[in-house]
């Protein structure tokens, strides 16, 4: 299982702040595609992905027990 975290507007679009999924050995890009099929509106705008609290690239592989965060455009400060 992996854990997926949702923040800000993505939390509102999915109705979840986190969920557990069976998904490993595949890429960040594949996970995003899967989630975009699952949740309408998720693909509106740029989403970055962090694996275990570090920004990841689309081709990075997600491993079992990883904590994945979907990060919409940040607006701190």
């Amino acid at each position, binding site marked *: 299982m992996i854990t997926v*975290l949702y923040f800000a507007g993505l939390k509102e679009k999915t109705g979840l702040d986190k969920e557990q999924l069976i998904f490993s050995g595949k890429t960040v890009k594949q996970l995003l595609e899967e989630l975009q099929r699952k949740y309408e509106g998720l693909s509106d705008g740029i989403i970055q992905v962090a694996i275990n609290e570090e920004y990841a690239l689309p081709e990075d592989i997600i491993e079992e027990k990883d904590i994945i965060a979907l990060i919409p455009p940040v607006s701190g400060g």
Partner: protein
Amino acid sequence: MKLFEIVETVIDPEPYRKAVLHASAGAVTVFTGHVREWTKGIRTIYLAYEAYIPMAEKKLAQIGKEIEEQWPNTKVAIAHRIGKLEISDIAVVIAVSSPHRKVAYEANEYAIERIKEIVPIWKKEIWENGQEWIGEQKQKPIVEGELK
């Protein structure tokens, strides 16, 4: 307090100034970012900030490290508040000490720019007639980016 932290209560800048002071620091710049009532003609009632706290604190510490590498003999402390913030509340404090003032100013500005780029914190503006999550992210889309 920690040198790089997300807090849920009122920010007092003074402890951050003191935390970066040391004997060879001739200058400390303390920047505070506040909740603004009017943005492009729209009146904000209050703001709600959210963060991915453990990653946000890591990224704040990364910014501190970048500064201390780029400008030798500086020391940095940063705190960002989350939750509901009213007009004029402090949302962020950045304290930078340096042997001389020029670097303290430059490095402090660098810190706020980097916060707006890489730290997973989100601001929701609540207006009289609506609300919206704000995205000011400067980074390129992930398909083009090199974020590591």
